[in-house]
């Protein structure tokens, strides 16, 4: 018969081995890369591993009276159990099981592409989004309504506006000769770049936040439209070695347009984005009536109807649509409750109880 002491030693050894095994798996996962690591840690074999750790932590709290008596240690171990349970609950496999047996859970993760002025309720895989835009570009007859999707939400998300904010005076004009970078200059009015006697000299004449072109009386007129929209551009003067000069417009969003002459010289206007904004409106209810209004940006998602909506990508050419990353909030509260307990536990155990007792940090062997 196993004595209590032997049992405790066994539990400690198994615990230590599981910690070492998880360390080794983390290192292997890091070498595999994000996607393969995700597959590894969500594989059926690893489910047993996660369950084993959770059971051992719970068992440890029952076997070791010390873990129950010391508030810090109890919080640390209970916190770890919650993080593991929450992690398993929020996983892809858990969502699948909940859908199959209870028909309750939606997809754990997907994307939503919404054009300005339109609303959408379909969550798609990123591959499905890519196919949809490829089809739209090729003008195929496939209607966006016919596109396959992962799930439909019970409410619609409307995009009122998408915009990008750039750092001021931080733009650059990159210059390439035969596709090789030969130099760069600050995108400021009056800046010049001289490439030597055999190549043209470049000078920036004007910067545009929202470049527009109008034809009036048969004449072309360019302007910086202060209204809605973004089309950053530069007006540059190119002075050729033979004395000829010409004006060119370099667009941040259309790098293919910026080829000069016979294609030997290319320019790219690069701006440093400060933030991306999507003005969203939730259309909930039977009549699709307007509901919550929220501007989402990087680090500021929208939480609605059991999902988080994140700014993920956008229309790089004309800024007419946004792509939102959509994540289910299933299990999230459990994970964060675990984080809170874990954090409270480590600080109490290693810092605060010693400060209160007037001892140095961790003077005992615990």
């Amino acid at each position, binding site marked *: 018969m196993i004595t209590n002491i032997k049992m405790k030693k066994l539990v400690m050894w198994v615990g230590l081995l599981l910690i070492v095994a998880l360390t080794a798996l983390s*290192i292997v996962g890091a070498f595999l890369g994000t996607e393969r690591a995700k597959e590894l840690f969500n594989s059926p074999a690893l489910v047993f591993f996660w369950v084993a750790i959770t059971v051992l932590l719970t068992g440890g709290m029952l076997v070791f009276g010390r873990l129950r008596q010391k508030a810090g240690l109890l919080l640390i171990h209970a916190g770890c159990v919650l993080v593991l349970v929450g992690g398993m609950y929020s996983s892809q496999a858990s969502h699948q099981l909940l859908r199959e047996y209870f028909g309750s859970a939606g997809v754990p993760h997907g994307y939503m592409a919404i054009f300005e002025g339109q609303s959408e309720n379909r969550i798609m895989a990123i591959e499905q989004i890519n196919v949809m835009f490829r089809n739209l570009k090729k003008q195929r007859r496939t209607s966006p309504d016919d596109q396959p999707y992962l799930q439909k939400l019970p409410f619609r998300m409307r995009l009122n506006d998408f915009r990008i904010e750039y750092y001021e005076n931080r733009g650059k004009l990159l210059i390439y000769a035969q596709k090789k970078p030969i130099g760069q200059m600050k995108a400021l009015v009056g800046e010049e770049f001289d490439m030597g006697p055999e190549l043209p000299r470049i000078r920036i004449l004007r910067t545009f936040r929202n470049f527009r072109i109008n034809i009036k009386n048969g004449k072309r007129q360019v302007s910086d439209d202060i209204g809605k929209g973004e089309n950053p551009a530069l007006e540059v003067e190119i002075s050729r070695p033979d004395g000829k000069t010409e004006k060119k417009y370099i667009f941040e969003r259309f790098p293919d347009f910026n080829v000069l002459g016979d294609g030997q010289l290319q320019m790219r206007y690069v701006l440093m984005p400060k933030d991306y904004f999507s003005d969203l409106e939730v259309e909930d209810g039977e009549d699709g009536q307007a509901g919550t209004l929220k501007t989402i940006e990087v*680090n500021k998602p929208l939480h609605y109807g059991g999902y988080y909506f994140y700014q993920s990508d956008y229309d790089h050419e004309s800024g007419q649509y946004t792509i939102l990353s959509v994540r289910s909030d299933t299990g999230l509260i459990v994970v964060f409750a675990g984080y809170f307990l874990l954090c409270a536990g480590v600080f109490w155990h*290693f810092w605060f109880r010693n400060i209160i007792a007037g001892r140095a940090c*961790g003077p005992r*062997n615990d």
Partner: protein
Amino acid sequence: MAIKWTIQGCLIYAAMAAYGLAFVSIVWRRHKTGTLVYQTGFMITVVAFIYRWVHVGHVPMQNLFEVFLTMGMLIYPLSVFSRRRLRVGVEPADMLIGIVLLFPAGFVFDAAPQQLPPALQCFLFAPHVAVYVIAYVIMAKATVQAIYQLSRPAGPKGTHLVDYEQATYRMICLGFPLMTLGLIFGSWWGHLAWGDYWGWDPKELWSLASWLVYLAYFHFRYMYGRKHARLNSIWAIAGMAAIMITLLWVNLSRLFGGLHNYAT
């Protein structure tokens, strides 16, 4: 490797020189001079840190240059705190740690100021990086204590100081909660920025591995106490090795592509 002929660079070199001079003074038993020069070195790093902050317009913890500069500044307050509150000594080694931490900032990493990309404009940016930076400096000091334990098991000469094994333990007890907080802040930030509180990114996995090594250290030490003091020290050194990989290799090597690439 390049010398930085800038005000920023000169401040870093001056701080390194002060730390070096302080080390020499202490070795030559000029304790008062050594302490004074060590304090001067610290003041120079504070000036360098503030200068950088003003220059870039945000908390200087965005890239490896700024992180190492910050760590070089933290070593002196840690030395003082460790001796007074934890009775952990070996200040000359701390001075050398200061030089080692400032060296990459002075000679290796690019100091060109960078704007914060959208993902880094978050209220968690400064706390997440700051707690990790402080934790890493503490763990570096813990590692020195562990190395001393392996090479000089007799312990320090000063009677008011604890022995090296106990010193390693105390330093790890001080740093471990900060590493935990850093991991949780990172996860919270991941949830806000990418929609994933855990993304299995190489940097995340190496951070977890570092945390787990110290967790294993605590469990091993709980099981055997100080019976296997050398093994306790080896756990502590292994933790530092994992931290160095997390901080340097993951950011600098193309082997580990991931969401934290901008940290280079």
